[in-house]
């Protein structure tokens, strides 16, 4: 059975059809890339899956169970964690406290077997933020904030991680680090990942399968090399097909 199923999801904003009959399946432990130009509906799709937006129509299933219209906190406790493209740390808290909140309230449940602080530090270790644990989250650089987004999502103990442009705005060097972090945490935790990314290199390295959205519709699905050759995708991105 597929871990996550998105079936005929549509979302209207007034007269704009942001998502139009989008259907996709994600297998356990798969990494699915999601690409498309600005306004193609990628973030909207994440928001619908994570419960921040209610779809106008369609169904979302997690392990066969319908979760359409659930509130975000409930979706999180069922094992779907998301990051935000525009980072949203708890700025009044330290980096460690940000992660602790996610441990306390997430899917994994806090059993107090190991101290909360230790568990937070383990997760910060995984994303390379251990040295900044006591820094106020509002004072971090962009790349550290992106890492914190990932750490906080991880701390909720997800099965599925929705990563929304965690590499946007990073330097090439930082992109490489982030790719390595994502590969490592995926292996360690047998995570299923859906990743939205404009950095093509990252998408190619990380995803086994790529789905391309254009004006709210899926126009192509395939392995990264197949997508690179796809006529529709080239047309959508470059406006002409070089046949």
């Amino acid at each position, binding site marked *: 059975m597929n871990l996550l199923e998105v079936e005929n999801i549509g979302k209207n904003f007034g007269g704009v059809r942001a998502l139009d009959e989008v259907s996709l399946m994600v297998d356990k432990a798969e990494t699915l890339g999601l690409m498309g130009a600005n306004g193609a509906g990628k973030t909207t799709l994440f928001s619908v899956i994570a419960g921040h937006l209610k779809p106008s129509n369609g169904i979302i299933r997690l392990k066969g169970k319908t979760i359409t219209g659930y509130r975000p906190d409930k979706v999180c406790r069922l094992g779907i964690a998301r990051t935000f493209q525009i980072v949203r740390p708890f700025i009044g808290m330290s980096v460690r406290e940000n992660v602790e909140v996610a441990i306390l*309230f*997430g899917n994994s449940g806090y059993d107090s077997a190991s101290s909360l602080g230790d568990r937070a530090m383990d997760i910060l270790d995984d994303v390379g933020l251990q040295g900044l644990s006591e820094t106020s989250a509002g004072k971090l650089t962009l790349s550290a904030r992106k890492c914190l987004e990932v750490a906080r999502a991880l701390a909720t103990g997800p099965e599925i991680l929705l990563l929304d442009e965690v590499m946007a705005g990073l330097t090439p060097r930082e992109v490489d680090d982030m790719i390595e972090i994502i590969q490592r945490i995926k292996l360690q935790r047998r995570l299923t990942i859906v990743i939205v990314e404009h950095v093509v290199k990252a998408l190619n390295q990380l995803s086994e399968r790529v789905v391309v959205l254009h004006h709210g519709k899926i126009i192509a699905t395939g392995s990264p090399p197949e997508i690179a050759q796809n006529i529709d995708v080239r047309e959508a991105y470059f406006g002409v097909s070089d046949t």
Partner: protein
Amino acid sequence: MTALNGILKDRVLLIFLTSLVLTVFVPDLFGSYWAIVALNLMMWVSLTQSWTLFSGMTGYISLGHVVFYGIGAYVVASTFKVLPLWVSIPLGGVVAGVLALLVAIPVLRVRGPYFVILTFGLAELVKYIVLNVETSIGKSSRLLFGAPTIETLLYIMIGLAVIATLMTKLVSQSRFGRGLSAIRDDEITAETVGVPVVKYKITAFTLSAVIPGMVGGVIALKSTYFEVLQVFNPVISFTVVTMAIIGGSGDVRGPFMGAAFLLLLSELFWATIPQIYMILVGLFLIVFVVFAPNGIAAILWPARSRDSQ
């Protein structure tokens, strides 16, 4: 249980609670005038602590907390000589809690300035409903003959101040309190990491209404007189917010400092030059908001207010 252990080890809190309790000696040592001052101080401490539990922790500024105080006073006044006080005062708290629960669901849908205005408007609405009900049954005001002495009321009020302080402290140290702080920082993120924001906001709002309900009842007994416009006076809400801002809401001692500061000002100026008093309150409010947004507590005990948020 761990929370309780934490409280027993918290020396600052224990000293603070002890000093609250020591005010029981004020009537004997300083006479009845100061007994009333102590009663007023304990009243404002209770109200401001309770306000902090919700508004301080979630960042939703309620400008209508007087409604819970007023409804508690109304319960005690309208059941006076019908129900014993040990029933009617707690009943005032319960009714205030139920009222908070009922209004929380529509009111907590909005944030920021909309929430502030809505709580204010709602308190005014309830005030006029109660006023019309009272007028229609021919009771524009009620005299409460045979109320307990000021000393007895002071003891009850000290109890309420202690409970309000403990409640706020326990909540701030719990998982629930962490969730509320997360809501204050970023509600969307809070819900994304699993904080049940709707449930938490409603629970905190309800909890923060119970003590004010009981305080209102005790104050009605103190004045031996119940008048709707007086117990639902919006100035009470404004004063609570002012005390929380001036005292600071990140430290348990903050609400006390705020209440003590404003009472001291009013003792000094209210009786002689009331115009100066209001001007000073306004000035201090501006000064604190601009220069010391975390209040007196953060100036006196900087480290503690930061990590006990």
